[in-house]
């Protein structure tokens, strides 16, 4: 890929434009670096590719071997598998069941049920289930 650098007159004018056939892992990493380390990854919505910041993600779900990323307003397709995203995102992103990764920072509150599982109400009022087997890890991530 050719790289052109033009001099800008002020900080506000600083912009990076990337022209690419597809968004590869290298481009995602470059975007992440340019955005100051904010983790991001490639997703698609109605055949358009986007770079999504991790902080916008509420939860990620795998259905019939397809991965869907949910933000406040939209549901994106994603080429990555859950285990890959789990490694990539780390931090407050964690597996809450076999088919879901949840962003702990988007949980408004949790409620225990009699079966031992935890119902997590997200900031967008959706409810995600944290399986009993993953509760210990949730507590570990929260420093409990």
């Amino acid at each position, binding site marked *: 890929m050719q790289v052109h650098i033009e001099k800008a007159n002020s900080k506000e004018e600083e912009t990076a434009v990337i022209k690419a056939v597809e968004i590869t892992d290298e481009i995602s990493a470059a975007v992440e670096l340019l955005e100051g380390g904010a983790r991001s990854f490639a997703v698609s919505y109605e055949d358009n590719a986007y770079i999504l910041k991790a902080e916008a993600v509420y939860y990620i779900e795998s259905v019939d071997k397809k991965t869907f990323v949910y933000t406040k307003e939209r549901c994106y397709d994603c080429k990555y598998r859950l285990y890959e995203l789990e490694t990539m995102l780390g931090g407050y992103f964690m597996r809450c069941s076999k088919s879901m990764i949840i962003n702990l920072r*988007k949980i408004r509150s949790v409620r225990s049920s009699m079966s*031992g599982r935890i119902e997590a109400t997200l900031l967008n009022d959706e409810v995600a289930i944290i399986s009993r087997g993953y509760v210990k890890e949730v507590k570990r991530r*929260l420093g409990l």
Partner: protein
Amino acid sequence: MNKLKFWLEQTMMISFAIYLGIVIEGLVYLIFKGEALSTFSLSWYQLISVILTGALCSLLTLFLLSDYEGAGKRFLIKVIIHSIGLYLIVSFMGWIFNWYTGVTGFIMVTLIFLMVYVFVWLVSLWFYKREEVQINKALDDIRDEE
């Protein structure tokens, strides 16, 4: 490993609750029958049988409820099957290890079973509730602003 830990924890909790039930049974005999506690005795194998019963009951819990993720009606059905299963285990073990003789003894074992069952559920619910409070508190510190 987690399953083994779960099984051991449940075994300890159930065994402890049964021993507690035996203590209460002794006190009931003392108060209502006027007998001295010394007449209330347990053989060494009966003490071991309590742990064995706890282990068997935990095994049933492990298979029926430990990995179950459902809720509502299905969960209720599982709990009913689980409780009947436990009652059959306790009755059978009681019969094998002479925990009771006659109908009165069997009624007493049934009462202890009910007490232990409720105790274990209450302890579990208390544990889950405490966990819920802890997690909610920790989430307050990291939550994103919308």
